[in-house]
C-alpha cells in the first residue's frame, strides 16, 4: 500500500510522518519518531508493553495503524514526566522496587495512569483487573500493585492539601 501522510500530536508536540497504510502505530513511534519507550512484547495486543493513550484512551500501539492517529493526541511514557519532575507513579515505581528488568514498566505506567485518571481511589482488585492487560514476568505483580496503591494515596492526600489551601 502507498504511503499515508499523517499530521498528529505526540506528547504535546506537532508531528508529521509518512508511513505505509499497513504500518502499526507502534512501528511509527519506535522506528519513525525515535520513541522506543513503548516496547513490542507480542505484537498481538496480549502483553500491553506497547500501551499508549490516544485522545486519552489507553490502547495497544501494536493494534492500531499509524494512519489512524491523524489529528489525534498521542501520549507515550516519554511524555509522562513534567520537565525534571517525575510523575508520582514513576517515582513510586522506583521507590517501591516495582520493576526488575523494566521492559514492561512503560506499559504499566501508562495503564496505571489511565486507571488513576478515571478512578483515583481504586481497590486492590480494581488495580489488578485494570492492569490485567499488562504482562510482567519478573515481579509477580506484588510490588507493582503496591506502587499504584501508594500513588493513589499520595495523589489523594495532595488533592486534600490543595483543597484545604484553597479554602
Amino acid at each position: 500500500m502507498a504511503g499515508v501522510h499523517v499530521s498528529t500530536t505526540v506528547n504535546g508536540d506537532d508531528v508529521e510522518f509518512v508511513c505505509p497504510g499497513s504500518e502499526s502505530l507502534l512501528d511509527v513511534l519506535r522506528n519513525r519518531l525515535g520513541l522506543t519507550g513503548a516496547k513490542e512484547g507480542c505484537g498481538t495486543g496480549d502483553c500491553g508493553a506497547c500501551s499508549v493513550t490516544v485522545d486519552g484512551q489507553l490502547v495497544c500501539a501494536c493494534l492500531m495503524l499509524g494512519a489512524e492517529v491523524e489529528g489525534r493526541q498521542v501520549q507515550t511514557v516519554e511524555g509522562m514526566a513534567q520537565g525534571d519532575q517525575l510523575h508520582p507513579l514513576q517515582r513510586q515505581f522506583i521507590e517501591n522496587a516495582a520493576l526488575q528488568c523494566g521492559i514492561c514498566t512503560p506499559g504499566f505506567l501508562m495503564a496505571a495512569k489511565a486507571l488513576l485518571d478515571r478512578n483515583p481511589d481504586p481497590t486492590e482488585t480494581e488495580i489488578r483487573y485494570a492492569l490485567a492487560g499488562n504482562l510482567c514476568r519478573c515481579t509477580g505483580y506484588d510490588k507493582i500493585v503496591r506502587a499504584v496503591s501508594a500513588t493513589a494515596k499520595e495523589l489523594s492526600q495532595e488533592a486534600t492539601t490543595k483543597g484545604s489551601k484553597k479554602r
Partner: protein
Amino acid sequence: MTLDTQFTDQKFKLVGSRPDRPDGVDKVTGRARYGADASAPGQLVGAILRSPHAHAKIKKIDTSKAEKLKGVKAVITSADLPDLTNGNRGNYDILENCMARGRALYDGHAVAAVAAIDAETARRALSLISVDYKVLPHVTDVDAAMRSNAPIVQPHVRTAGGEPSDKPTNIAQISTFGHGDVEAGFAKADKIVEKSYKTEQTHQGYIEPHACLATVGPDGQGELWVTTQGHYTFRNLCASLLGMDIAKLKVTSSEIGGGFGGKTHVWMEPLALALSRKANRPVKLVMSREDVFRASGPTSSTSMDIKIGCTNDGRITAATATLRYQDGAFPGIWGMLGAMTAFACYDLENVQSVGYDVLVNRPKVAAYRAPSAPMAAFGVESTIDLLAAELNMDAVEFRLLNAAKEGTKASYGPTYGPIGIGPTLEAVKNHPHMHAPLGKNQGRGMACGFWFNFGGQTCTDLNIGVDGTVNMTVGTVDVGGARASLSLIAAEELGIPYEHVKCNIGDTASLGHNDTTEGSRGTFSSGMATIFAARNAIEELKSRAAKTWDIDPEEVDWVDGEAVAKGVEHSNLGPLSLAQIAKASPNTGGPIAGHSETVADGAGVSFASHICDVEVDPETGSTRVVRYTVVQDAGKAIHPDYVEGQFQGGAAQGIGWALNEEYIYGEDGRLQNPGFLDYRIPVCSDLPFIDTEILEIPNPNHPYGIRGVGETSIVPPLAAIANAVSNAAGVRMDHIPMSPPRIRKAIKAEAAMHQEVSAG
C-alpha cells in the same frame, strides 16, 4: 590485599538497606535501551525463514528469486555458515540449532535468513525462498521417544551412562546418583508410596523477545548489541562459530527484558553477524513472539516415577526416582539435573535417582530458573505428602524429621555444610499462614525446594574520580536490580555514600571474561569481585595517603572511608577522606583504581519452603491461588527489596507453570499455541500478594555470607500448589499443569471410583 573469601560477620552500615536503584529513572521514562531499541546508520532489517515441519530432510533451498528482489542485500543458508567447530560436538549442535544443516529438527527450526532495506522487503524476500522438504516421521512426547520403534532424532547419538550399544537411540544419557542400598531400605519400610507423574513443557516467557544489532566489516572486526545474560560467552561462541578473533568482536549487553535462563544461549545472533558480514551493513534482527516460543529454548517436559518408603514413626528408609526429561532436538543434561536435585532436601540413608535425557522433535531445551529442579520436586514433594497422609503425620513434621542438615550426605554425593532447609521448615511451621482458617473449597499445601547456585569467572573495575565519586564497571548482566546491590557493596567497603557510586555493565572490550549471569551468580560473584576491587583500591588509597604524609604505607589504616595514620607519633596528622585523597591523586601518582579478576567459587546451596492456599471450583476445575508465602534462605540480603522481588517472581512463574502454562503440540508436530493468548502466563488479576520471609544463614564461602537467591524460588511452587489443589479438591493431581480440564477429569474419576467402591 585481602582475597579471603571466608565469611567474617562484618557489621554493615549500608548493606541490607533499600535505596532507589540507579537505573530507575531510565526505566520509568522509557530511556533505557533494550535489545530492539538500538539502531545504526545504514541498518538493514533481518528476517528468518523457519521450518513448518517437525522433522524433515531439506533436499534443496532455492534463494535465487529472493536475492533478485530489489532491496534485498543478503540471503544466507547453512552454506554461508561453514562448520568451523573442529570436532566440538557441543558447538556443532549450537551451529545447527541456529540454522538447519540439511535437516529440520523441529517446527520453527531456521532454514534461511535475509537482510533487506526494510521489514516489508525482508518479509517478501522470505516468501520468495523455496525449500524442498522431504517430511520424516517425528516424535514430540518424551515417553514415546524412548520406545525402540520411535523415529530417531539424531542418528549419531548413543546412550552415555548406560549399557554400551551401537544402536541409534533417542536416549542421549542416563545419569545415576545416590548411595546406600535402596532394596534393603525398602525392605525395612512399614509404608511405601509409589507414583508416576508428568509435567508439560513451559517457556521462561520473558517479555522482551530476542533482539540484536550486528555489524561486521570485511576487516574481520565486528560489534554486537544484544539482549543476553552473558555477553562474554556470546562473544566467544559467535567468534568461534564465525571464524572471527575474540578480540575483534565487541559485544555489548543491552538492558535485558527478562531472561530466566533463556538468554544464556545463542539462538539467532550468529545469523545476524553472518548477514551483516555478507551485506557489509549493520543488521537488526528481532524475533517475533511466535519465533520466541517456537525457536528459543523452553524447559523440558517430563515423565517420572517416584517411590519412597518409611517406618511407622516417620523415618524415610529408602527413596528412588526415575526421571525422563526431554532435551528437545539436541542432547542436554536436563534429566541429569533432575536426578541430582530430586532428593537434595532430605537426609537419606538409601537413595537412588536415575535421570534420562531424551531427544524429541521440539526446540532445544534451555535453562529455566533452577533448571530441572521444579519438576523433580513436584514428584518427590507430592509423594512425601502422600506418605505423610498414610502415616497420619503432619506434612511439615514429616519433612522436618527427614530434612537434610549440616553433615548430611547429599543425594547427589557431597556432604552438606551449614544449610537452610531445616530453618525454612521451622519458619513455615511457625508461620501464621499455616494456622489461618480455610474457606469452602479451599485447600492448603506446602513443599520444599533446592538449588545449587554457582559462582564463576568475574571481573570488577573501580575507578575513583577526582571528586571522590566512584565509577564501577562489572561484567555480569543486571537482570533484576544487581546494580543497586553492587553499588551498596562498593559503598560499604569504601565507606562512602551509596549515591557516590555509579555502577555500569561493561562491554566485552572493557573487562576480562565474565561468565554468563546464570546459576543465581550475579550478586554472589560480582559482589565478591566488588569487595576485592574495593579492598584493592583501598590499598592504593592508603599508599597515596602515606605519600601525602610522607610516612610508610604500613602506618596507614582505613577507617570508615578515611585514611588514618597509626600510632601516637602521627597523632598530629588528621584523617584524609577518600575525596581528599582523590582530589590530590594527579600529584600522588595519577588515577586511583581498584580491580579484581577472580573465580568466585564456593556458592552455597540454597533451600526454600513455600506455603500455598488455593480455591478450586469443583464444577469447572477452575483454581485460584488465594494466599502464598515464600520462605527462603538468602545467606545475606544485600538489597532486601530485590531479594523479595526474586522470591515473588519465582513463585509467580511457578504458579503459572503449575496451573495453566504448557506447550501444546498437534499430531503434525507443530506448536499450537506460540503466543501470549494461548500460552497463559499469569496476569495481575490471577495472583494475590506474595508474602516473603527472608532467612539469613551465611554462606561460609563469601565474605558477606551471600548465597544466590534468583532461582530456588521456582522449585517448590509446582509441588506446593499440587498439594494444595489435592487437599482442596480431594483428589491427587499427578499431571502439571493442573488445568481445569485435568482437575475436572480427576474429580470425576475419583467420584466414579468411590461409587464403585461403595457399590462393591
